[in-house]
């Protein structure tokens, strides 16, 4: 209980104090996770739309696989990317290990199935409603993909947010491929892990609170943006 109270006080202190190291860590967390989510959206949303719109043999199996990939443990993704980027690995020459780019890659791999699966779920519902009308207008399953994406844009924001939540909160993958290097690859979650391992429980909790506030901020601003956009545009 002591720790909890101390954590709230510390969190307030950290935020109000504008500690430059914390600011850098928060900035990197946001940059890495937002980049990863952007990549995940760019790949996952069209993939979800494709699975929702285009029938092909093996599609049900592909959907099951995608849903299962949502549960990928971050550590496994981290190890996979580590093996890929390691000096002894196939992409070792790129020297990307222990860089923010490696962290983006790992989180993108982690989050893409989530964005894709949630998008598919949403767009499959839309396509059921639209398919016949679209075909009547001459829009086949492939050409329906951009239409479905645009029609589902407000719902898709939720898929992106779910991906962001997963990315900003995960520690296993970024720890392995980023190395938690101070000033270079240290993000909120690895900083929390570090402070915990130093026994600085209150500080770790305070960082956790800052992380929570950060997630709230992003989710909230997306909700507001989406609300105004939906009101202005054509829901």
């Amino acid at each position, binding site marked *: 209980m002591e720790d909890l109270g101390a954590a709230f006080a510390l969190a307030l202190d950290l935020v109000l104090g504008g500690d430059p190291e914390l600011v850098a860590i928060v900035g990197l967390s946001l940059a890495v996770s937002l980049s990863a989510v952007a990549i995940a959206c760019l790949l996952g949303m069209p993939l979800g739309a494709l699975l929702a719109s285009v029938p092909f043999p093996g599609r049900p199996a592909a959907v099951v696989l995608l849903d299962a990939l949502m549960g990928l443990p971050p550590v496994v993704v981290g190890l996979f990317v580590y093996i890929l980027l390691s000096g002894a690995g196939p992409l070792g020459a790129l020297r990307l290990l222990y860089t923010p780019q490696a962290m983006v890659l790992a989180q993108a791999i982690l989050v893409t199935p989530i964005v894709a699966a949630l998008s598919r779920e949403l767009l499959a519902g839309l396509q059921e409603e639209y398919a016949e009308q679209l*075909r009547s*207008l001459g829009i086949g399953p492939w050409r329906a993909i951009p*239409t479905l994406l645009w029609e589902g844009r407000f719902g898709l924001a939720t898929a992106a947010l779910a991906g962001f939540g997963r990315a900003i909160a995960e520690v296993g993958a970024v720890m392995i491929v980023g190395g938690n290097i101070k000033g270079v690859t240290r993000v909120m979650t690895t900083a929390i892990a570090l402070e915990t391992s130093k026994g600085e429980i209150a500080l770790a909790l305070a960082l956790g609170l800052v992380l929570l506030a950060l997630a709230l901020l992003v989710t909230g601003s997306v909700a507001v943006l989406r609300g105004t956009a939906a009101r202005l545009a054509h*829901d």
Partner: protein
Amino acid sequence: MTDPSAILPLEVRGLALAFGGRAALAGLSFDLGREGLTVVLGANGAGKSVLLRVLHGLLRADRGRIRWNGRPPGAAVWRRQAMVFQKPVLLRRSVAANIDFALAARGLPRRARRRRLEAVLEGCGLGPLARRPARRLSGGEQQRVALARALALEPEILLLDEPTASLDPAATRAIESLLRDSRAAGTRILLVTHDVAQARRLAEEVIFLERGRVVEQGPAAAFFAAPRSAAARAYVEGRLPP
């Protein structure tokens, strides 16, 4: 009327389609001439919607022959059709953008699209609604947009599946008047309805379906005066089947 790309008259012979062993169309045959407004009547499950979907290329028949001005169904035929569904499916964008979407899907150049869009907004009285989000309109307004979208494609034949089924009298009247106008402008119309009064108001010709077959086809006046089959008589008189 010697346009070589014309798809009418239509000849349908022995059309059959079964879903899981249950026949929806059971060897159905009829002809449609180049002009007019034909109403398709029949009890629930008679096969009216399935027939329209097959004609529009949304479903494939198991057996039978369809000839559009001598040609089998295909892209060239479909391009000259448009369909309006019972429940209008509009996209999450403005009324104008919905209509433009359909025109763009047909590959029309921007200038032609703008011209047609303005004409159809005007013709359907949708000018004041053009910028409104389509999905926020009332049911009647939405169906009018759906009809305008179909008319913008300038089809040779317009297929409608119970377009006024859930509309109030005023909205129904608006749709009917648009149908009369396009009929007058030369659009061939094939209308499925359950509303016998509507059929009396609009039909020049009636096709009556029963269990996937055409049991009667003829001029509307004669049909309503004296339906030949017992099923049609009961239907027109609004009697509940035994």
